């Protein structure tokens, strides 16, 4: 059973803002979905090593890439050719 404070905590972890009004509805929906997920408790079998798959590697060689102008062309805030982000501290 997920509580309203669990929902607020999950939203915080996911960096998803949630308004006070939405919390009860999200909580009800979460509980209905998680009730449905309970069917997985009955799944039998251990996780087996994956077979038939191999890694794909390539040499780490420089290749053509976007120009700086193209790379920052969609950013909302730029300064001196760099992308601006919110402060961390």
């Amino acid at each position, binding site marked *: 059973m997920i509580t309203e404070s669990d929902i607020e905590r999950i939203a915080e972890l*996911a960096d998803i803002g949630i308004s006070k009004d939405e919390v009860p509805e999200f909580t009800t*929906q979460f509980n209905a*979905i998680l009730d449905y997920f309970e069917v997985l408790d009955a799944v039998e079998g251990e*996780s087996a090593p994956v077979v038939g798959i191999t890694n*794909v590697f390539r040499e780490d060689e420089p290749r053509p890439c976007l120009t700086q102008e193209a790379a920052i062309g969609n*950013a*909302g805030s730029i300064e001196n050719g760099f992308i601006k982000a919110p402060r961390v501290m």
Partner: protein
Amino acid sequence: MAGTLHFSPDDRCNAFITTCKEAPFSDGTLAGVAVAVKDNISTAGIQTTCGSRILKGYVPPYDAHVVGLLRQAGAAIVGKTNMDEFGMGSTTETSAFGPTRNPADPSRVPGGSSGGSAAAIAAGLVPMALGTDTGGSIRCPAAFCGIVGLKPTYGRVSRYGLIAYANSLEQIGPMARTVEDVSRLMSVIAKYDPRDSTMLDRPYDHRPSADIAGLRVGVPEEYFGEGVDPRVAETVQNAIGVLEGLGASTVPVSIPGMRYALAAYYVICTSEASSNLARFDGVRYGPAVDTRKSWHEAYQDLRQELFGPEVRRRIMLGTFALSAGYAGRYYAKAQVARRNISQDFERALREVDIIAGPTMPTVAFRLGEKTDPLSMYLSDILTVPANLAGIPAISVPCGRVDSLPVGLQLMGRQFEDERVVDVAYAYEQEVKA
């Protein structure tokens, strides 16, 4: 014969988010053919939104591999089609750009999430389009709108430039009015691309053949059980009867893991989404984040404002399913269930050549009918197994119930996309005659 295609469609179904009034094209196998592209596939110079406000105004600086191949083949890219926000939905109603309507009945949804692509084809605005299918998003709208849609084998079509939702499940695939056009478009897009490391070098180059004499068709009981509208089930049974008339035989098969499929699918796709969608923070693309606020506050406010409720719900579900203390119960169990379902299909497809059933359990819903998320998820029960198993699956129109289209779903062995196309073609040619 290079040139420019003038495109100004009467888009009363709201199939397009962006249209290109002057679409250039070049010489090639699709020279001058109008092709629409789902709005989660990157198109250099053309806005790509994923149906979300968080990418409004985003213009990709590069083409997805499939878009580059379309251009090389001479296709005219005439627009970007509407979709459920980030592919999260089965109705196209979660789009930030308003719902798409079903050309077969405008009071109904076109299905989703590639609802815009399906509606554009069904309304006659384009002959073919690209969609993407994570849990049925090509096949569901193909069935609801009465067109053909193929989800290729996982690894057959490059995902480079597809804006990711759930990488281990999704594939780009062709949609068209006819099986022949689906096959033509598949021949263009299924070419090796080393930039997608989950891809195999198994190009598709095939002309459909209608000869299916001796084919063994598996009919799983799970596809005709509880929750499936009996009239839809009967329509699909009749379609399977047509295949028998063409010399195929039917064999009962069973996919016991089906009872876990939907839960496993939703745990896996939301988990992958919670990671993939972390990149939408208003820093590198989309409407700008407020850089005066602190990091978490700025992101939380932006993502609350610009993601719709279904996207926020799925990101939160995935975050929860992967969180300490719950990952073992949800994510790890879902992976075991997924492997079991793959093995069920492998086993069944040793006995038969193809598996047939309905694409969707019902006909198209009314607009606004699916308000509860769980009831919307449940409608994906017949399409998600093919994504979990990575096998090819096609939906081909097979009749109507309440004058709404019904889709016959045909699933095959991995990398036998050609065979599912052939069986769909045989059916289509027979009922057309």
